[in-house]
């Protein structure tokens, strides 16, 4: 194996490790942090089923964003949906050997790369040209978009121009990562940039705003059932406090007995 292949193989495992451990820690933190009060935001759902459907609409259709701003919704939706299709299509590289026939149907998904890049470009343009959004943007906000754009564009270049990469070599490398049967990777610069930035993206996921992905599922304003009157909702720390401080609180109430 070439030195470059060894480095990229190592980077893959390192970034994947950082991603899994980092996300695991973060999700655990979200999970164990109690929500002491019922704070769902209108339009609230009165049943658990309602909440599940609300969440599904939120993460598949970006319902609240649609209500909020059609441009951000359009670009955001193009990017996320494009990315999803592209990711699904990328599975072909990681599955060793012959592919199930269903992958033939996924062939057109390659065009989703354009949706993704157009969406990202739209978001970047808004960040640069809309003063309100420029005001709230930090350097990392631009960098994140640029990184994703470079990933998208380098992918488009490989797929749709004459600068094709040897896809069989890519498949050997990628599936080798899964089966621990490591192989050399193609050395075209756009492929290496594409791959490197994907590794960076994986590694920064748990320490950046990309945490919105698990975050949305834990958002109390969206995932709580609006049933505070019907069911007593109390967090462990508040319950303990209620028990311990019952007497003390009574004393501090002034004219209470």
């Amino acid at each position, binding site marked *: 194996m070439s030195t470059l292949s060894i480095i990229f193989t190592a980077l893959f495992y390192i970034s994947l490790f950082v991603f899994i451990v980092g996300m695991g820690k973060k999700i655990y933190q979200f999970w164990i942090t109690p929500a002491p009060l019922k704070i769902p935001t209108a339009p609230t759902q009165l049943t658990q089923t309602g909440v599940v459907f609300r969440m599904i609409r939120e993460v598949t259709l970006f319902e*609240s964003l649609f209500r909020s701003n059609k441009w951000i919704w359009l670009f955001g939706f193009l990017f996320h949906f494009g990315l999803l299709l592209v990711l699904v299509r990328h599975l072909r590289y990681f599955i060793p050997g012959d592919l199930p026939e269903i992958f033939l149907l996924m062939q057109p998904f390659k065009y989703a790369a354009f949706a993704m890049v157009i969406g990202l470009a739209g978001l970047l343009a808004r960040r640069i040209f809309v003063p309100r959004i420029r005001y709230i943007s930090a350097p990392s906000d631009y960098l994140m978009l640029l990184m994703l754009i470079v990933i998208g564009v380098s992918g488009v270049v490989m797929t749709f121009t004459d600068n094709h990469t040897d896809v069989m070599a890519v498949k050997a490398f990628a599936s080798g990562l899964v089966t621990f049967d490591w192989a050399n990777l193609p050395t075209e610069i756009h492929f290496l940039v594409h791959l490197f930035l994907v590794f960076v993206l994986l590694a920064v996921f748990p320490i950046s705003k990309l945490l*919105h992905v698990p975050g949305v599922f834990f958002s109390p304003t969206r995932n709580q059932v609006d049933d505070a009157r019907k069911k007593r909702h109390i967090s462990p720390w508040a319950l303990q406090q209620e028990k311990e401080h019952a007497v003390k609180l009574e004393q501090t109430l002034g004219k209470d007995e």
Partner: protein
Amino acid sequence: MAAKEFDIPKLPTYIEIPELNPGVMEGEGPFKSSEEFQNPLGFPGEKVDNWQEVAIAKMGELKSKYRSVQVFLDSCVKCGACTDKCHYFLGSSDPKNMPVARQDLFRSVYRRHFTFAGKYFPKLVGAKELDDDMLDDWYNYFHQCSQCRRCSVFCPYGIDTAEISMAAREVLDTVGLGQKYCNQILGKALTVGNNLGLPEPALKDTLLDLEEEVEEDFEAPVKYPLDVKGSEILLITPSADFFAEPHIDGLIGYGKVFYQDGVSWTLSSYASEGANFGMFIGSYDVMRKAALRIRKAALDLEVSRVMVGECGHAWRVAYSFWNTLSGVGAGADSSDEYAAKLQNQLDHRYPQPQHIIEYTYDLIQRDKLEFDKSENDDRTVTFHDSCNVARATNMGGIEGGQFILPREVIKAVCNNYVDMERSTIKESTFCCGGGGGLLTDDLMEIRVKGAMPRMQALKEVEKNNGVDTLAAICAICKSQFTKVLPKFDFDPYMIVSVHQLVSNAIVLDKPQTDATDAEEAQEAETE
């Protein structure tokens, strides 16, 4: 105090997103609290020496106790969806009044102290130190948020600036920088029992006067009972209802509805306050202390129903938090002795707690009340959805009931009703501009500017539909509108309680003692 001079915003035909004017709302914020008001709440009387250390520790504690704070701080992608949703931004054009920018005052410090990227690459991710300037910005701009949660409706992740603003205010209180208005009021509420500091004898006198007045005006012996043990209903209402205009006409209306239903009810001198400013300052403990007074009053007076008068955040605290804080509600586990003690006493054929609008609506549905709608024919009415009722509660147990029930009550007593523009009502309602602990004269500039979007929508229905009456079910909205309406060339008396409209139209007859009587009486009248 000499109020700062400021321009009153013009009312455009459509709400336009203003150009950014950084720093236009910079300032020292509202009057600061002093030792006298801080200490009873358990907060230091002045800014502590090691305030940075204390503040950061408090931030760490809050984010470990509130999932909302932790998740919201981590999840914002700065998409900008909320940037044009805050009434204070639309009215003031100060970019720090954009919800995300307001949160970022807090988030940038969180990033600096609690995240890897912020610790090692602060410039890259916009992480900032909590220095004197930042603390001043916190105090100023977190008191330009009415915690109305409009931004949360529009955020793709439901990020709620109110949660961040509450957390920031709690940190400020913890380092000794409290707001005078809220903390002074809380002192009265937690010792005397109401925000006005009205003791039992004064309250009793006020209610007796009211009874005399109502009897004179309406020729019916409507009662406003206080501390009557064994009553069926305990009414918890904002203390503004006892003396402020137009609030008191709402209280008169509640009394008439109770009278007509023939139900026994009482107010409590110990828990004579529906408002709970503990929510505004973000303190679970203080909010709980205030809520415990209602629990105790309900237990002491042995009532079977707890009802809440017209007050926005009071209804949020009652509907969403009382069950948690003090067990006023239903559905406690059998092992939960604390909550069960009260819940076994309550009559669960009714929702606990119940809103006065739910109660009146229910009576109307069951044909228990008779109205002469022509009494309100001189009015064309629109309804202002108060933010806490609209976005944080429900009524009637049906989806969107908090929008439907008040409108149905109004339509049952008025012939002329018009809604304001859809994007300014219901879950998208614009705050009156005075909520969240901002209803103080030292914040008049932001109150007037923040009222602009609501005033704009009102102006449209005034022009197009001849609306001359604005009905609301929130004590803060009513007080705020009384002050700001004239600034935008409206009649200050156009703001009324929903139960004032009910009061105008309700036909009073002899008190009835039970349902059969009521039905018979009504049948006799219709014949």
